[in-house]
């Protein structure tokens, strides 16, 4: 397991996996300028400052990526997995959208090519909102091959089981 930890989020990655945890706040610079593959204007209200972003993948992540994986989803092959955690501000924790508590476990049936904002041939996705340790997150998982979901989803769940979220503030604070 390769450890990855920052901003109160930690995870042990299986061999060959890679990932990055970075801050999405205005002080972080260019990452906040990227256009996400799934724009979520209805989820990020004006004045709200999104927090940490976690990208985990079993393929080589390009250095330049959008918060929701643009730049990475385009190069995914059928066996590729991309797991994204996007943190929302503390004001979102008590909203109905984030009512679900705890890091989710996913089922094969939940994945649907139509869950991707920008449909890419053969791929499917799943987006879930949840709260954990007083923090609000959007979990977004992309499978490179929808037909491989029977094999890929258990691997995703194994990674999610190793995810630990602690009740702390944003990176660097």
């Amino acid at each position: 397991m390769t450890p990855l930890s920052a901003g109160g989020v930690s995870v042990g990655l299986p061999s060959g996996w890679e990932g990055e945890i970075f801050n999405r706040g205005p002080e972080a610079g260019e990452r906040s300028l990227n256009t996400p593959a799934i724009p979520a204007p209805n989820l990020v209200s004006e004045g709200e400052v999104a927090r940490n972003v976690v990208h985990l993948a079993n393929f080589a992540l390009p250095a330049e990526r959008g918060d929701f994986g643009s730049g990475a989803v385009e190069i995914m092959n059928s066996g590729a997995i991309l797991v994204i955690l996007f943190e929302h501000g503390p004001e979102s924790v008590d909203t109905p959208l984030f009512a679900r508590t705890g890091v989710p476990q996913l089922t094969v049936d939940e994945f649907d090519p139509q869950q991707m904002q920008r449909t890419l041939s053969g791929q499917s996705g799943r987006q879930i909102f949840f709260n954990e340790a007083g923090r609000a997150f959007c979990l977004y998982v992309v499978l490179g091959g929808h037909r491989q979901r029977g094999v890929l989803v258990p691997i995703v769940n194994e990674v999610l089981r190793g995810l630990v979220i602690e009740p702390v503030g944003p990176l660097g604070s």
Partner: protein
Amino acid sequence: MASRLMDPRTTAIVTVIVACLTIVVILLTVIVLGLLRSHGEMLRAFNELGVTFGNDTTDAHSGARGTTTTIPDPQRKSVPHAKDLVVARAGDNTVFDISGTTPKGGALAVGLTGRNERTLLCFLTSGCATCRNFWDAFANDAALPRSVDRLVIVTKSNDEESPAALNNLAPRDHAVVMSSQAWDDYGVPASPYFVLVDGATGSIDGEGAATTWTQVGSLLSRAEADVEAENERRIDSELRKAGIQPNDPTLYPTDAES
């Protein structure tokens, strides 16, 4: 007036003393110049090996600490140099995934195995003069060699490196991970240093030092050509052992077969 004049004997003594002092000063000047030249030659020699001392190349505008002195392990026989870049690794061939931080303060893990691609790990520092060649090349979108699928820059952790300096140097197109553990895992003796990892086999294809990116590219290309030539020789040899000579008709399909 006459009382102010020195007697001839005193004048002679003073003249001798001044002459002696002049000679001593000239001798000391020659010695100091010799030492400075020797010092410069040593620094140049160290620099060619990728070793820098102190903050000799610190960018004053970047606020870099520039104290990333790298000294080769004295137990190691020698620092592999450019000519050794793509030779088989003699020692431990283990590939390690890399976990560390980014210059911006985030966390980054780089996976290297279980994928059909070759990764070139570039171990650089922010203060080493030779490393600057590579930072500049990467900032100017230097093309990757044909045999390399991606490039990952590995620096020491932030207790030995300056994140602020790295922020100014880090290229947009390549990952920069700060991990002293990776330097230990791969036994990096000096900077800049390069390790070529084959993800498909989970092995290290080669390693060594070079002074310019162009040199790295040409060495990798040459090594690639050597491997292809060796494969051709091996195939010819196996065919000969099977009794098949060059231009043997069995090597070419007949019209009926094709």
